[in-house]
């Protein structure tokens, strides 16, 4: 029988420790600022001027559609980098808190399979961030749409990619923090992958510079094995500005990596003596 205890408790914990509130307030501020303080002067579909909190902004003579897409892709890049890091930081403590001595005993002595406990915790953490990302993206999309009458479907759709990028790196946080029982270690591992993903994404330009075929082979292998966070975030931008997408291999290999992390965590967690 499904018992949502741990899943709901993860939500409750994020409410109480203000993690949920922090992201919700930040998202609300962004949506509210755009809705209340941004005024656009549009003449014949071309942006002629713009004021933000009463101050006039110098904008290039883009069409409204171009301007909205630029704004949305800029926001998506911000969320995909800085926002992703903040989200990983905020959720990195979820697993070590659960694994604390005296706390884990109270969970493992219940008639619930261990895989369900860890899955519920993972799903809880991922859902908190998914909710906030969806709230931010849909909020911005709605407000900008109402103000500019430009309803770019790529922007709300890119939320799925933002959530996917987070879930993949969150699976890294999970496996590292469950095996090491350390939140900072999990965060460090996920951040390292996030930071190095643009380097790996440029493997076609970088590998010719290596002197040894072995190094080139290792670098290419790392590219294929590790999650493609930079390319996933890049795909968000392409989706927003309506460029062609080649997502299958990016999403596919990242998904396989996340799945391996998840299975590895479940196997480790179900076998470990606490």
């Amino acid at each position: 029988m499904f018992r949502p205890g741990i899943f709901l408790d993860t939500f409750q914990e994020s409410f109480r420790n203000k993690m949920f509130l922090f992201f919700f307030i930040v998202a609300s501020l962004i949506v509210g600022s755009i809705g209340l303080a941004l005024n656009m002067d549009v003449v014949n579909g071309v942006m002629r001027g713009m004021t933000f909190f009463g101050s006039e902004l110098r904008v290039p003579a883009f069409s409204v559609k171009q301007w909205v897409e630029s704004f949305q892709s800029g926001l998506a890049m911000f969320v995909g980098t800085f926002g992703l890091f903040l989200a990983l930081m905020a959720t990195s403590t979820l697993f070590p808190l659960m694994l604390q001595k005296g706390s884990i005993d109270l969970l493992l002595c219940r008639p619930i399979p261990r895989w369900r406990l860890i899955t519920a915790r993972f799903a809880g953490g991922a859902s908190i961030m998914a909710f906030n990302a969806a709230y931010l993206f849909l909020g911005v999309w709605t407000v900008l749409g109402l103000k500019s009458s430009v309803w770019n479907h790529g922007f709300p759709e890119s939320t799925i990619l933002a959530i996917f990028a987070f879930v993949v790196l969150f699976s890294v946080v999970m496996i590292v923090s469950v095996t090491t029982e350390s939140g900072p270690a999990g965060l460090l591992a996920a951040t390292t992958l996030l930071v190095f993903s643009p380097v790996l994404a440029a493997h076609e330009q970088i590998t010719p510079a290596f002197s040894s075929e072995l190094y080139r082979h290792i670098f290419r292998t790392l590219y294929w094995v590790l999650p493609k966070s930079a390319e996933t975030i890049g795909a968000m931008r392409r989706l927003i500005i309506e460029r062609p997408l080649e997502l299958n291999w990016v999403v596919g290999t990242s998904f396989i990596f996340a799945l391996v992390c998840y299975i590895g965590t479940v196997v480790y967690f179900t076998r470990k003596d606490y």
Partner: protein
Amino acid sequence: MDLEAPLDCLSGGAEARHAKPSRKHSACRWEIPTRYNFPMPAAFEVRAVFKTFRHWWSRREVCALRNVSFAVQPGTIFGLLGPNGAGKTTLVKIALTIAYPDQGEIRVLGESVRNRSVLRSVGYLPENPRFPAHLTAWQVLRLYGSLSGADTKRVDANAANWLERLDLAGWRDVRVSKFSKGMNERLALAQALVHDPDFIFLDEPTDGLDPPGRREVRAICRELADQGKTIFINSHILAEIELICDRIALMKSGEIVEQGTIVELTSNQSGYELVVGVSNELRNWLHEKMLPFTAVDGHLHIHVPDRTSANSLIDALRAKNVEIDSLNVKKRTLESVFMEKVL
């Protein structure tokens, strides 16, 4: 009911002691006995459990449990005594599937703990319980009650009862991060009981409680046992165990070294004590004969191990015209049994 014979052979008896070392358990050097016969369904059965913790990076092995076997009758309060590191908590953790045995089996309420559904009927108070700090006392009980598979209405009713009984009703909606150690311990007891379990593990249940709190815990344990529930207490506080338990087992270095009722364990006399008046001549004579004695309040307390020695000493003292003030048979206390068997 005669549990003694099979239990005696199970707890590392002659058969196990003369077994060849097992290849798999080089650190333990025991072999698994193959057949056990329990004459009646026990509430808790431990069958030849071995556990070795291996640290792969240092290649160090710690043998936590060696061929541990015993049983607990339903409706009793059983105490597992032992010094720190004896393996008591490891055994309980294996019984609750928090850790896994290398070999052997544990059955609770007639079911192997491999079948996790039996844990619905089991309550557990860990040694240092740590609750999610963001929850209130009420939320803690609801969370753990529901995770134990109990019906929500029953959990709510039980939670209210136990909070009242354990003097936490006024703290029902206060976050546990504000609780003192004693309150935390009482709440931990409530969460162990909130789903109305039939078998309850209590690991150091009186740790951090004041004397009234300890008395209340003892009263609750007795009431639960009277209702037919079985209580398993892990402790190294001898006085508590002596007051509360129907039967105890002593554990040392991962092995059960002695078990029985407190009366059975302390019934053997541990020698005789003769009390005589102090004199320097007598002191010198006792030193000469190498007889142990202590001087207390102008009297010498002379210790002799058995009746023959006591009679010989009385004859010798009377031959020297020494007046004997008293002769006492020395009974073993639980503490003396513990010190003798475990330390």
